[in-house]
């Protein structure tokens, strides 16, 4: 049980750290680590957790040999110096280079509780003043230990011979002063979910020579030792008492079955160093000091714990689920995406994540038959990240392409149950393609091989097509320019015409004016028809209407606004000559009369018609509008 002895040894050292009696001086170690560099003057440790009545040690070290000259310790108030100063000097010769180091140690004790700072010490090295760092000390109330006074100890030292305590192991019930506690992080888990079980030794005494009597079997679990390689030096306070704690074992357990599983207790045998009440015993240390303590071989057994293991939920369980519990990621990689014939590439699929990976089955991937595939190289690595076990498992396939082409590589898929999110998840690798070129010993590229690349070489000739003259383009040719610019010529022409039409269309007055003669003519034509029928009344009516209509059209006035009285003025205004005006008025008068009353020469319809025609012709000449 070599490993257990090592464990015990390290434990012993740790537990003595706070104990005054042992005074194990590790100065040469410290000094050694400080050699070879520039001169350094340090105080260690930097901070201390102490309890009242339990002395602790502080050390000032310098990587030069002459610390004694010019060393000035600080004031240690409110601590009492219970031991020291001890000086240590070491000289090392490595490859002909000499390095020296020296240190001074003190043992201090305090009766007061609280946090204190010990200021730095001063050293004079080759005329240079150096100051060390300060030390922070936190003091809590400890168990009173009667024989820690300097005088008492010195008495004991003189007593000489060490007395061995009872060497027979006596099994003791977990006492108030030492016990092992089994801690688990969870008491209800899923199958395959990690449980961390930690066995912690609590003790107020120094403990040495530990050996494990009974190692738990962890049956029903797949277990992995996850003990910290260097147990941290811890102190823990329980019911006002400070214990030194030590992690004996930390296990990552993965339950394999379901139901209630028991985590078995751990039993160790150890020697505890109990302070003597009466100063009867003592032991000679390798440094020649004698201590007043009792050695006792004891067995300490932890309690056991039960955990409940649930089966994984059936709901949503994927078909390809193979029992992976945790959080995983699947990745695929090719060492090169392009290769040539006969040039191997490696296709690596890796699962990484939190959980137990050692049981994972291999993938069943079907590769293209034109790729020669060798059995995968499987690598499993698991490591602890804090209390969690993490792992990487990789499958490396070596692919040897036999023919050029583009191959899509098979995808790997896993499903796992994530106990934190209480759900199944799938993870698969992404699509990977491997392009294989012809090898370098190149025979001409065959169409067969080309066919396989991205759908194949289109080797068909195209039979029917038109030939074009080289360099003939519609763009930039004369027809193009003509067709493109023609609208720009057409549009202005159209615009001009349109504008003209529009003004004419909008000019109603002008149109009426221009049409006045025509309208009058038309009316007169009607009158002529009536004349032929000898309808006198209607004939004269029409003549009057045609005359008035002509005027109103010409000067743009409503028809009803004209009368015999105002028409003369109007015509005069528009520049019609007096004789014509008179003639107009006469004609109108005559016709109106002829409608209702017999007039002389009434039968001379022809004469009236001709007169009216000439009258309108005159007015057309003279009217200025």
């Amino acid at each position, binding site marked *: 049980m070599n490993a257990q002895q090592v464990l015990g040894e390290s434990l012993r050292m740790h537990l003595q750290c706070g104990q005054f009696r042992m005074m194990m001086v590790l100065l040469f170690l410290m000094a050694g680590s400080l050699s070879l560099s520039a001169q350094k003057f340090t105080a260690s440790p930097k901070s201390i957790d102490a309890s009242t009545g339990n002395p602790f040690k502080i050390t000032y070290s310098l990587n030069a040999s002459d610390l004694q000259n010019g060393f000035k310790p600080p004031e240690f108030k409110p601590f009492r110096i219970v031991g020291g100063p001890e000086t240590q000097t070491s000289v090392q010769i490595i490859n002909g280079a000499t390095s020296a180091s020296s240190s001074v140690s003190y043992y201090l004790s305090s009766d007061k509780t609280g946090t204190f700072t010990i200021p730095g010490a001063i050293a004079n090295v080759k005329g240079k003043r150096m100051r060390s760092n300060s030390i922070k000390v936190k003091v809590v109330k400890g168990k009173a230990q009667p024989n820690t006074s300097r005088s008492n100890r010195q008495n004991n030292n003189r007593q000489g011979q060490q007395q061995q305590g009872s060497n027979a192991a006596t099994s003791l019930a977990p006492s108030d002063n030492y016990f092992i506690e089994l801690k688990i992080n969870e008491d209800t888990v899923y199958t395959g979910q990690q449980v961390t079980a930690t066995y912690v030794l609590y003790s107020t005494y120094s403990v040495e020579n530990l050996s494990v009597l009974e190692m738990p079997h962890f049956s029903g679990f797949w277990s992995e030792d996850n003990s910290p390689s260097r147990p941290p030096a811890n102190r823990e306070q329980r019911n006002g008492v400070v214990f030194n704690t030590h992690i004996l074992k930390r296990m990552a357990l993965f339950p394999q079955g379901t139901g209630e599983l028991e985590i078995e207790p751990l039993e160790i045998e150890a020697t505890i160093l109990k302070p003597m009440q009466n100063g009867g015993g003592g032991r000679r240390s390798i440094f020649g000091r004698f201590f007043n303590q009792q050695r006792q071989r004891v067995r300490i057994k932890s309690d056991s714990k039960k955990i409940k293991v649930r089966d994984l939920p059936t709901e949503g369980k994927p078909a390809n689920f193979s029992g992976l519990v945790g959080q995983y990621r699947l990745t695929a990689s090719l060492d090169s995406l392009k290769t040539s014939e006969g040039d191997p590439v490696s296709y690596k699929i890796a699962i990484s994540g939190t959980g137990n990976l050692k049981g994972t089955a291999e993938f069943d991937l079907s590769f293209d038959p034109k790729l020669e595939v060798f059995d995968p190289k499987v690598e499993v690595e698991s490591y602890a990240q804090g209390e969690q076990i993490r792992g990487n498992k990789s499958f490396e396939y070596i692919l040897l392409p036999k023919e050029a082409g583009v191959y899509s590589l098979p995808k790997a898929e896993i499903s796992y149950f994530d106990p934190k999110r209480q759900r199944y998840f799938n993870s698969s690798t992404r699509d990977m393609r491997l392009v294989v070129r012809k090898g370098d010993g190149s025979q001409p*590229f065959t169409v067969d091989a080309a066919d396989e690349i991205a759908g194949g070489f289109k080797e068909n*000739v195209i039979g029917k097509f038109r030939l074009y003259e080289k360099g003939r383009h519609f763009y930039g040719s004369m027809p193009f320019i003509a067709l*493109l610019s023609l609208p720009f010529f057409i549009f202005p022409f159209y615009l001009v015409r*349109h504008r003209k039409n529009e003004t004419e269309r909008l000019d109603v007055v002008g149109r009426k004016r221009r049409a006045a003669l025509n309208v009058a003519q038309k009316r007169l034509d009607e009158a002529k028809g009536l004349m032929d029928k000898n309808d006198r009344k209607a004939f004269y009516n029409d003549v009057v209407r045609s005359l008035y209509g002509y005027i109103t059209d010409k000067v743009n006035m409503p028809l009803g606004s004209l009368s015999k009285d105002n028409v003369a003025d109007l015509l005069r205004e528009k520049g019609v000559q007096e004789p014509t005006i008179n003639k107009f008025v006469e004609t109108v008068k005559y016709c109106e009369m002829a409608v209702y009353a017999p007039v002389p020469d009434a039968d001379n319809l022809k004469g009236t018609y001709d007169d009216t025609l000439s009258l309108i012709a005159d007015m057309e000449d003279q009217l200025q509008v």
Partner: protein
Amino acid sequence: MKLHFRCFLLSLLFCLSAIAQDSQLEQVYQANEHYINKEYEEAAQQYEQVLQAGLEAKELYFNLGNAYFQLNEIGKSILNYERALRLAPKDQDIQLNLSLAKRQINQRVDDYPLPFYITAFRSLVNTLSSGAWALFAVLCIWAALALAILYLRSPEVKTQKRFFSLAWLTLALCLLFVFLGYNKYYWESNSDYAILAKSNIKATNGPSEASKEVFSLSEGIKVRIVERNAQWCKVIIPDGREGWLQQNQLVVI
């Protein structure tokens, strides 16, 4: 009179070119026969003759490229595929065969990436040939004219407004088509690119025999010509390096 004469000349020209086309097409068919019978050398020769007669077609270049590919003359094959692509940049068969041919080059020169707006613009311009762009431009300008007339003639303000905006829109479209067509026309009629016709060409750092060699190139690599003089031209290879080559070492696409 003068107009009549020109018409006559034009129709005569068309007749002549049609005759020429017939005999050239005959040659193309013969070449196709040779190709099908795997007489690639004869096929290539005949295709080349048709090209020398001043005629072209993307199919012709494609067939010729295939023939050279089968003869394992990768440089010429790439050249003809590139020329076919110039006429039909989006033809997938041509693109595929070109990429297959490029795999055969011993030397790989990776294209350096262009900014996205340039590739987007190129792809837009390449959607149609310059002729099609021109046709669209012409259609648009006439549509704009019609819409303008409708605008003038419409009696109602509402329809007037509609025709007015439509007329401007089509005019803008016409300008866009003219612009795109111009780019396309430029690419169709001028080429800054060339294919290396010989293997293992040494590019130098200056236009003379005595200049220092900067890099060597193998047959079939596409280069961009940035400067030329009587005998030499300065080229940029796709990965951005520059060098001088002799004119007879490359063929413009």
